[in-house]
């Protein structure tokens, strides 16, 4: 079985995010970019499936700007076998929306024939949490989202899902789309030899047009603002006063 893992290049989680002066989005010029952390977990899970003998090949795919090939190299250094870069934008500020990504992924799935797609549950830049679900709908495959455990067994997979207030275990038919939650695994560090080997692994380059997918945004960003700075606190004299104040600001 082949496993396909889509990975997204996003602003590094350690970087202090700044909004562009025109409010059109986050400033991504000259900031450190990394693999979306949930995608790293997805890559790790796919590699573990291969190490357990349940998968033969791990293919990673990234859709976006040319620089996303660095993200793919990271996945190859972790242990993925080969990579596909789908160039769909030339401006780092252009986000490819989930539906367009899902359509491209559908085409990649049809071309590559994986038995399983493991994606991150969401990207930490725009928190859409939609690509995996949309891909599942487009392909008509089962979906197991927010996975904290995955056990693939032939034609079925048992998935533990992190749902509000607890865990839910489901059994789904393969082929399937699984989206990774934070506790699915702890991704490994790529070793020095693997970082060097990654350079030699195959990386195919395609464009969105190759798949006939229109990536024009359908959503309009009206405004992006930074979170309000923390303002000074006040001292309250009693519990009643505290409750009153909280109600006043609509916090309870």
């Amino acid at each position, binding site marked *: 079985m082949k496993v396909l893992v889509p990975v997204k290049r996003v602003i590094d989680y350690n970087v202090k995010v700044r909004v562009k002066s025109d409010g059109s989005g986050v400033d991504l010029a000259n900031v450190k970019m*990394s693999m979306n952390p949930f995608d790293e977990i997805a890559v790790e899970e796919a590699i573990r499936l291969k190490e357990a003998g349940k998968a033969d090949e791990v293919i990673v795919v990234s859709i976006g700007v040319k620089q996303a090939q660095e993200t793919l*190299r990271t996945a190859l*250094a972790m242990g993925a076998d080969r990579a596909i870069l789908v160039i769909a934008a030339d401006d780092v500020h252009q986000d490819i929306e989930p539906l367009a990504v899902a359509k491209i992924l559908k085409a990649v799935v049809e071309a590559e024939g994986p038995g399983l797609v493991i994606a991150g549950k969401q990207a930490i830049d725009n928190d859409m949490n939609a690509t995996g679900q949309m891909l599942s709908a487009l392909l008509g495959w089962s979906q197991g989202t927010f996975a904290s455990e995955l056990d693939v067994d032939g034609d079925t997979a048992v998935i533990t899902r992190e749902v509000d207030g607890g865990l839910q275990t489901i059994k789904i038919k393969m082929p399937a789309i699984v989206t990774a939650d934070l506790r699915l695994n702890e991704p490994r560090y*790529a*070793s*020095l*030899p693997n*970082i*060097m080997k990654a*350079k030699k692994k195959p990386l195919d380059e395609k464009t969105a047009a190759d798949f006939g997918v229109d990536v024009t945004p359908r959503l309009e960003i009206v405004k992006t603002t930074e979170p309000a700075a923390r303002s000074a606190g006040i001292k309250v004299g009693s519990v009643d006063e505290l409750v009153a104040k909280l109600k006043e600001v609509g916090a309870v």
Partner: protein
Amino acid sequence: MDFALTEEQTAIFDMARAFGEERIAPNARAWEAAGIIPKELWPEIGALGFGGIYVSEDSGGAGLNRLDATLIFEALSMSCPSVAAFLSIHNMCAKMLDAFGSDDIKARFLTPAISMDTVLSYCLTEPGAGSDAAALKTRATRSNEGYALTGTKAFISGGGYSDAYVVMCRTGDDGPKGISTVVVEDGTEGLSFGGLEDKMGWRSQPTRQVQFDDCKIPASNLVGDEGEGFKYAMKGLDGGRLNISACSLGAAQAALNTTLQYMGERKAFGKSIDQFQALQFRLADMEIELQAARIFLRQAAWKLDQGTPDATQFCAMAKTFVTEVGSRIVNQCLQLHGGYGYLADYGIEKLVRDLRVHEILEGTNEIMRMIVSRQLLSDRT
């Protein structure tokens, strides 16, 4: 000319830094208090390829160059200079075994050292021979079975902790040409250790005297040829100097990062202290020195990788400059923390203590200046 790191070099730096932040930084103080780096850490580090960074791929190493190595030591030192520097010494030994050891030595000592199931110590200094290392007196007497060692090594990082010792000893006459290199395995009869040295910094790694009293080793433990040992030992040092410099650089960068944060939070005279121009200028000066140090270090590493004739001189210059800049910066960072900088909880005073020795070992900075001036004067037309 291209000053950019390659994609792989960036990946290597990021990986080392992330590993350090997760596995080393949170424990650095506890390991310092315990006076020991837990041995379980090393195989984890070995799995990343850090046990033989510039050991050739044929011997099972990562086959990287010296510039790559400085990135790793800079990144790891951001978490703890003591741990990073220990790894540097181990790598120096591993490289010696790779470059000059027999296949038998590689199989017995290098392979487990690369996975870091074992760690190695470098034994050159003696109580009576520090800067003038070629005056060393530890004697290896040849017998039918091999060698019998007698003598004492001083200041050995990992003494009484490591699994094998790469020892420079005298097999011939006085002077550098009478020196050979041998490997002594822990547990060998006649090998013993002095008490734990109570040091200013590098406290998480044990330093002890290593003593040989008619310590018998097989002839096959000789590294390379008799009489070549001093040359081997010096060959390792150019790279060792780069690594130690990189350790100063990473720690200084970490201290500056912390200080920048602190100065935004700490208030005096009604403002955050980063609003005082006197202090802003100090920040700028630190940044300027740090960047200059980084460029100089990488240039020296590049020269060593290229094998340029002036590589040794550049390694000596970089070592002096970078370790002195590093110490100055961490000391300034302590100052900018006010009284809190003097407290262990803030993490800066440890760096001041740890970096101090970088000006002393792998050749003191005076010896580095000797190397530089000697060359200058001899090149004079």
